[in-house]
């Protein structure tokens, strides 16, 4: 117990035997892993492997059936509410309000996260200039810009960890790479990035990845180590080998 407590200073996420059952179906089956602070961690798996259920547990949206986890040093079972203030989340599909302007969206989320008006004003200004955006209706922005904005908004309250669920789906290849540069920049500032993707080249951008198969973590490591260990030329090959259903 003390070991976990001391480790958690450098570990953003520590999951131990985390499990979720729905009726007699086990969506997440005793997964144990940790993510270091400031790490870009790729959470891969086939559709239905249990990724979304695991993320919903780690973000405090779904209670585990079994097992335990610490997120940003806080206990998932007893400190769920505090965890929500320490994490950012960006979903698969765009999560901002289309019929509000860029600044209105920032102000709304800033308010939800409990930021002071002065902080919101300051961060809004720096966000607009960093993204090169003007204050217009969000519905008028191209998809790639919306995704970059949504990521920035997920970082608005300076969370310790940001969860990104397929942030780059359908985005053009240049914007996809710009998005990853934003991820690197956030990680360089110390933010832990927990990301899912179906683009296997993006998996190789991560410091470490795990691959979930049927509710369990089939393997975990740096992309380079995993390619050596399994003797495959790419993570795509590894993914297909591990995740192809029997």
């Amino acid at each position, binding site marked *: 117990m003390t070991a976990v407590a001391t480790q958690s200073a450098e570990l953003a996420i520590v999951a131990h035997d985390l499990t979720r059952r729905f009726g007699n179906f086990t969506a997440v089956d005793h997964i144990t892993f940790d993510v270091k602070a400031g790490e870009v961690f790729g959470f891969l*798996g*086939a*559709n*239905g*492997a249990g990724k979304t259920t695991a993320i919903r547990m780690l973000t405090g949206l779904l209670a585990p059936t079994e097992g335990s986890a610490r997120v940003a040093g806080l206990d998932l079972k007893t400190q769920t509410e505090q965890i929500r203030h320490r994490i950012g989340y960006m979903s*698969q599909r765009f999560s901002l309000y289309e019929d509000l302007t860029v600044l209105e969206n920032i102000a709304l989320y800033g308010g939800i996260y409990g930021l002071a008006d002065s902080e919101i004003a300051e961060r809004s200004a720096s966000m607009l200039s960093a993204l*090169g955006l003007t204050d217009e209706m969000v519905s008028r922005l*191209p*998809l*790639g810009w919306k995704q970059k904005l949504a990521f920035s908004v997920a970082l608005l309250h300076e969370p310790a960890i940001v969860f990104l669920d*397929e942030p780059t*789906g*359908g*985005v*053009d*290849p*240049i*914007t996809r*790479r*710009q998005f*990853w*540069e934003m991820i*690197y*920049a956030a990680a*360089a500032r110390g933010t832990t990035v927990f990301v899912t993707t*179906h*683009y*296997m*080249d993006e998996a*190789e*951008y991560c410091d470490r990845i795990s691959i979930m198969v049927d509710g369990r973590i089939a393997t975990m490591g740096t*992309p*380079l180590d995993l390619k050596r260990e399994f003797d495959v030329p*790419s*993570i*795509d090959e590894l*993914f*297909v080998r591990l*995740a*192809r*259903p029997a």
Partner: protein
Amino acid sequence: MTDPAVVVSEVTKRFGAKVALDAISFEANHGELFGLVGPDGAGKTTLFRILTTLQIPDSGRATVLELDVVKDLWAIRSRVGYMPGRFSLYGDLTVRENLSFFASVFGTTLKEGYSLIAPVYRQIEMFADRRADALSGGMKQKLALSCALVHRPDILFLDEPTTGVDAVSRREFWDQLAILRESGLTIVVSTPYMDEAMRCDRIALMQDGRILQIDSPREIGARYPLPLVEVFGRDRYRLLLALRKAPHAHSVYPFGTKLHFTDDRKNYDRAKVAAELRDYLAREGFGEIEINPIEAGIEDRFMDLMPSVQRAS
């Protein structure tokens, strides 16, 4: 069957102030697996909706199987199979009921269409009595493909069939398309995944309602106009920023564990580019760097052709 299977000539479609398709032209041949490759907003879905007679172009002309998409809509509808981007089956019907329904709409039966759909349908047949809503993403996609095939169409239109689908199911899906293509079916398919485009006979790169280039996947890469090398080393982000400042840097992009560096000197020897970069990076304090001259891929070419996109800051 003299004309190509699909002929699109100067087709334009606007929605209010937005130009979804801007005077697009291309042809897809009989028996060809033709890919429309581009991100969301490129105009792929609008193009499919026009080719399947669900929308009328503002100007320009298009034919499918020598039938005009505006005048001959009813004749076209019975001969095309269409799998829209969004799951469009009946969630509260079973797998078998969905198939029978789509067969009956076209005046045929599941039995008559069985041989064509068999390679796909066999993989989900064990779930024939399961409600479509209860299928996994990969299985839904197989059912949707079966439904698009059950009336034995002469041409198949697939709008982003693999979006949001994992890498394994994507690969299986493309294996099935290869089998259908072998049987002689003409297939027009769209995808935002550049790696999938390699499996097409020819592809059109699309962006913002325009076609940037049409060619075989291999030729698309070969048309890359500048010397390209890949760079591999530790501390990739710092390396990326350093490479952007290198003399003659045209563009630098991450590709998996590597970085692709394009030199701005046309016809300059790639081996020389590699040697100069090696010296530059050594001066900047990077050790253990690997640099190799490479041929450009589809994604390199696509990014090079993309207009009006702000380069990474």
